[in-house]
């Protein structure tokens, strides 16, 4: 069985339309982030977070009115999961009393004596740790991108590395925007920027890179096979050659992540969500960002006329830097 018989879609030719689409999506995301801010998890800002369960269930307003009595009326309260679970987040303060959780449980139990409350999780982070974690997260993503830039330069060429890294930036920004928009519009998803979410960003960077490398690898091979053929044609051929694999792998990853999003519970929901967006944009950006940038570099910087079919253009042949060096020597 074959989902995709040999295709010959002109992917690269339509790249300018997709540049606009991508830029618009990123812009919408960034504007949302700018206006609404990011919903940082407790690990990044400090504070205290309680997860509790009540039987029978209650209204959030009821919980808030009880918390008002102990001066935590401004706490962030959301429903969590499906079984009458609630997440209460208290901001980090100068004098953080040691037993906020005990106070909260106490006031809830005395205010609603007929309801049974269970404390499921209590998470407390000092503000200093939060700042450090934010820095570490940014550093981790920076080092990952730097490593990819160097590795792709060694294995392919510098301009391919630039294309790949820009594609990754594109994926991270779109995913960040999607997280910001969805945590605003669909609050019950409880999307928070926490350590697990950062792990998702790094994983989607690696995943998106997978896709890009597979296409680049085919371009590298086809450039040797079809010497002298126009770069756009080689790229289109390579993308079409690998299209079947691209769709199948993205499809299986998508299905697995969807299962994780639906059945995986609260802890991995943010991870699964970010990865789902990332897998989708990663697949797309390998074609329309990473490969397109390599083409446009040749068109606008190197001034190669790609309109002319079958011109000899040896500069376009992918050679690894060490191979070039060997040839010269």
């Amino acid at each position: 069985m074959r989902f995709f018989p040999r295709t010959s879609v002109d992917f690269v030719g339509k790249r300018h339309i997709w540049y606009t689409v991508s830029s618009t999506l990123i812009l919408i995301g960034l504007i949302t982030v700018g206006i609404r801010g990011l919903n940082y998890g407790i690990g990044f800002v400090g504070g205290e977070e309680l997860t509790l369960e009540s039987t029978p269930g209650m209204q959030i307003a009821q919980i808030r009115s009880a918390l008002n009595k102990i001066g935590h009326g401004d706490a962030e309260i959301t429903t969590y999961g499906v079984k009458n679970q609630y997440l209460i987040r208290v901001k980090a303060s100068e004098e953080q009393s040691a037993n906020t959780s005990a106070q909260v449980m106490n006031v809830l139990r005395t205010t609603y004596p007929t309801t049974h409350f269970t404390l499921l999780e209590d998470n407390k982070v000092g503000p200093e740790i939060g700042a450090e974690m934010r820095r570490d997260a940014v550093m981790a993503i920076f080092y990952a991108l730097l490593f990819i830039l160097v590795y792709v330069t060694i294995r392919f060429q510098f301009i391919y590395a630039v294309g790949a890294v820009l594609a990754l930036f594109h994926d991270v920004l779109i995913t960040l925007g999607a997280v910001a928009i969805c945590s605003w519009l669909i609050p019950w998803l409880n999307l928070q920027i926490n350590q697990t979410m950062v792990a998702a960003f790094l994983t989607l960077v690696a995943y998106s890179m997978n896709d890009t490398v597979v296409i680049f690898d085919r371009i590298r091979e086809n450039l040797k096979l079809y010497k002298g053929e126009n770069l756009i044609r080689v790229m289109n051929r390579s993308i079409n050659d690998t299209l079947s694999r691209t769709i199948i792998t993205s499809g299986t990853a998508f299905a697995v992540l969807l299962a994780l999003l639906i059945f995986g519970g609260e802890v991995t929901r943010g991870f699964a969500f970010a990865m789902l967006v990332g897998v989708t944009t990663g697949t797309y950006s390998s074609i329309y960002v990473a490969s397109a940038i390599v083409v446009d570099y040749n068109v606008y910087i190197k001034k190669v006329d790609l309109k002319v079919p079958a011109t000899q253009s040896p500069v376009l042949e992918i050679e690894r830097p060490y191979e070039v060096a060997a040839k010269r020597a």
Partner: protein
Amino acid sequence: MRKNRFKIILIVAAVLLSLYYLYPTYESANYDARLDQLSGQPKLVEYLQAHPVEQPTDSLKQAYFDSLQQAFSADSIRYYDTNSKSILDAKLKRIKLGLDLQGGMHIVLQVDVLKMIEDMARNKDQAFDQMMAAVTQQVQQTHADPITVLAQQANQQGIRLSRYYADIRDDNAKVISYLQDQAKSAIDRAMEIVRNRVDQYGVSEPTIQKQGGSRFIVELPGVTNEAEVRSLLQSTAVLQFKLLEPEDVVIKVFKSIDDIMAGKTDSLASADTSSSDSTMTPAEFAKKHPFFSIVRMDSRSGDIYVSENDRDKLDRLLARPDVKQVIPTSFQFLYDHKAFTTAQGEKYYEVYVVDKDPLLTGSVVTNAQAQVDPTTNAPVVDMQMNSQGAREWARITGANVHKRIAIVLDNAVYSAPQVINKIPNGSSQITGMGNMDEANLLAIVLRAGALPAPVDIVEERNVGPSLGADSIRDGMISGIVGLAIIILFMGFYYRTGGVTADLALLLNILFILGVLAAFHATLTMPGIAGMILTFAVAVDANVLIYERIREEMTTGKTLRAAIDQGYSKAFTAIFDANIISLLTGAILYQFGTGEVQGFALTLMIGIVASLFSAIIITRVVFDIMMERGATSINFG
């Protein structure tokens, strides 16, 4: 077959090794289930339903429940006692579950340098209080290093720090460098104090780990009592010197305990049998001398030992009312701070019987240093005391020459040196440490009595057990659904090739779990997510290869040539892509903490394992099929 012989051996070895490492996990789960079954909790619930209690007072109710609980848990305790060695062994080697999956507390502690500076100061006056207030304010605003800020403030205000930090007649710079040394060693002290207490608290598999320069992480699985743990970690350490009870008295008491346990009342009977002890089998000996089969005594040195597995048993024994009657009220049973391992690989704790009332408390110790004795080259610890302590110490050592004094920190014995002669000036030397590490540890412990190491809880996470159980269930369901989707799809789309890839995927899961068990790694919820994601990435290599084989087959190549070309042409892409994933995982491991590290670890293990199974295992299967005469393999 021949050219694949090495690969086949490798695959079989990997499978066997994984099973070998996973067996303790399976065993441990079985033991847990058996203990659960025997613990009588279901029986207790059943009993309470059949015999409802009519409105008793709260205190009475609790006592009643406790007695029921005890009656119903007798079976499980007996089962645990007889199998304790293998249960503990399996527990040690199984895949650990992270705190997020089994519930427990995760605490990050930081040495409070400000408080330490304040606590260490003597002769505090108004000028000092004012200076400290300024320092505290500045530190809170700028998060600068407290000791640097102190140095600035002292110099600005023209305060001589040596006024507050006794015994030092130096300029501010010297005092500051002394304080910096103390701050640096404070974390070791704090960690040792916490480790000691956690060990005594009886948490199974605690983790205590340094994080950076001034922080450490304490993980206590299964513990949820927040208040208790907080006091356990933050209360001031107590260092005491306690006199060991004389050997002959201890032996007498032990004999009477033994008699009580054996059911003998008159001491004559025990005298009768003692002559034939050497000819008895261990089982007979255990029956006649139940106490001495648990507690061993070295007849020459008088040292007392109990095996690690019997420690709980001994504690329960000593708490028995009939046994308590023959133990003098002044007796206190203490254990060494850590077990030692015999040549046979068995672990023993030394037991010290000491006088309950301390001779002296550790607050008189002003300093302790580990050194190498220049004449004997052996590690020693030099200990100094303040003048009041020195006076007391002279009296104590004078009265107890040739007796042993135990150095006890929070009820754990770190050393029990013998007094050689009277020590007049408070300056003592302790010898007999096995190596420099032991000497350093003893010095840390001795300083813990004198120098404070106050710690702040900067991060605390308390996961209830029900949440962990929910997470495990969610992880299992999503994992099974994800796996089912992939297995069905691959089999359906790539036919024979797909089924082969499915087989490789299942083996891959076995390998990942096996490696996790071999590394004693911890499985967390993000780790499970990483494993589920690995399913998708693992088949990618096969998808790449199979798409390539299909392409090659359409150009009219033979089966063997198509498979050869498919594998070799797809390899560079697979290699490049996976190297990048692997290093991204490594970066994540480096920068992440706790659960995220668990995710990065499973991801990295998953990448390596999936490369092995997706490339090597499937290839071997196809080779064997072709050798058996297959002329076509269905790749869909």
